């Protein structure tokens, strides 16, 4: 009976299927074209900025998913991003691990950390959650500066990574090349974007949104409201960790700045700029922020950019660039239908 109801609700199942196949086909084309075309058209400087934008976009995506689906704003994304970078770097430099093993170990540590921290904080209200992620992030960013850990973390100077070995047959030193790294960052970002897009439409996404809206009713409907939020929290942190690994692969360097609050707020601003409702918005927001930051930063106006962007995108364009453009297109379409 439920199935009958579902079918009458969504119309022909073929419509849904064709939409999914359209999105998947579009994604595949974008994946290949985006990975290759810019490397022929753009110079190294633009590719570097673009790659930074993609990494920020991935971080923004993790922040936006938690905001949109669970109604929780995380201010500690940088601690995962930078922390993953430190773990990867320490594993290769001091641990003598191969890049692939260092990456796996770092990933498992981050997932375990996110699971423990998440178990403590996802039950709290949104304000407490935000403050607790901020506090946890600040603790980690200060921990790397501890004198006792200086031999491992490099203290305030950061850590230069010895890039030896390969991942999946590719020499990791090659990712210092802007064109090579752009292709990698693009492919990973698009795949993560598609994964989050699917998650948002999955049962987990539906449960998260329902819990966000009325947690008590969900509990009184027999749902465990803790586990879905914990799973989402671990997933978004896994994505932030991937962005952190990529950053180290490209830069060959990790510093305390990568753990700082400014990286977390940049990710938040990028998410607001692009729009938090889907996957495209945060990624686009990351790219816009990266290029705008370069332009404004050259004039020493980065903070001004951040402030103006926050006000503009919260007050004037609350759905971000993607949300605003899609609303405008819908309005335009309905006007044409009427005329």
């Amino acid at each position: 009976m439920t199935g009958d109801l579902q079918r009458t609700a969504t119309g022909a199942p073929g419509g849904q299927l064709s939409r999914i196949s359209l999105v998947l086909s579009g994604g595949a084309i974008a994946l290949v074209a985006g990975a290759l075309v810019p490397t022929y058209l753009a110079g190294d400087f633009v590719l570097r900025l673009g790659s930074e934008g993609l990494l920020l976009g991935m971080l923004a995506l993790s922040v936006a998913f938690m905001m949109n689906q669970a109604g929780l704003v995380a201010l500690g994304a940088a601690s995962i991003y930078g922390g993953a970078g430190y773990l990867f770097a320490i594993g290769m430099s001091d641990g003598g691990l191969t890049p692939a093993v260092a990456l796996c170990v770092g990933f498992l540590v981050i997932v375990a950390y996110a699971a423990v921290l998440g178990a403590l904080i996802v039950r709290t209200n949104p304000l407490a959650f935000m403050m607790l992620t901020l506090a946890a992030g600040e603790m980690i960013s200060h921990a790397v500066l501890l004198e006792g850990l200086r031999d491992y973390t490099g203290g305030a100077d950061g850590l230069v990574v010895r890039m030896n070995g390969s991942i999946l047959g590719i020499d990791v030193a090659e990712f210092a090349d802007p064109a090579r790294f752009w292709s990698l960052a693009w492919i990973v970002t698009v795949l993560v974007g598609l994964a989050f897009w699917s998650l948002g439409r999955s049962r987990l996404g539906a449960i998260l949104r329902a819990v966000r809206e009325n947690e008590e009713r969900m509990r009184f409907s027999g749902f465990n409201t803790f586990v879905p939020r914990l799973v989402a929290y671990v997933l978004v942190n896994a994505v932030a960790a991937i962005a952190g690994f990529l950053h180290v692969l490209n830069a060959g360097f990790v510093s305390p700045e990568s753990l700082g609050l400014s990286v977390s707020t940049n990710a938040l601003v990028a998410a607001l700029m692009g729009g938090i409702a889907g996957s495209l918005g945060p990624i686009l927001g990351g790219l816009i922020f990266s290029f705008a930051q370069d332009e404004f930063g050259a004039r020493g106006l980065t903070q001004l950019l951040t402030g103006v962007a926050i006000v503009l995108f919260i007050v004037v364009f609350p759905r971000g660039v993607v949300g605003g453009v899609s609303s405008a297109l819908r309005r335009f379409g309905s006007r044409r239908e009427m005329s």
Partner: protein
Amino acid sequence: MLKIEKLSVSYGSLRALTGVDLEVGGDGVFHGVIGPNGAGKSTLLDAICGRRRPTSGIVRYRDEDITRRSVTWRRRHGMARSFQRTSIFQDLTIREQLELVAQHLGDDRLDDVVEVMDLGAYLNQRAGRIAYGVQRRVDVALALIGRPRLLLMDEPGAGLSAAETLRLFQHVRDLVRERGIAAIVVEHDVDAVFACCSTVTVLDLGRHLATGTPEAIRADHRVIAAYLGTAA
């Protein structure tokens, strides 16, 4: 079905319920709970469904002590409730929210609930955009999914006209009889309670005052003095 023994609930220094005993049978019992404001009616439902932990006393459900069981456990074991203030998912369509809960509880007879609560015309509308009376029916429909054995309803007629309340009560009474389940309803509208409930309990100042058939309650001099007055 349900047996409550010496149940007390306190909010800090305020005692909302004091040593309440109550027994509700199964198979088509529609049990009304009435009483003046502050009598502890909603607190009683909260304690039964696990929303509020009792200060003392025992809640037995199908011969098992469930006093410390979670809300989720109770729901999965057939105890469902609706709320005094409509508690639905305003941003989801009626269909989306009913299906979400139905899939989770493994209820493949959702059409029955839609039909009983007369929601067929509203399935594709967002809950926040439909009339309040329909929202109340959605609230009850969410509780009916999963074929509960015990249905708890807190002021289902809140915000509805007397006629709408009576119609809703008649719907629920028929459902309770058809499915052989039990329902406890807390309600201010005593006319609807007397018209539809098979048993009525009266609370006053957190204490159990009387339990009996509607006719017996109407004639009970303690109930008349404390709540119904001469109008009854």
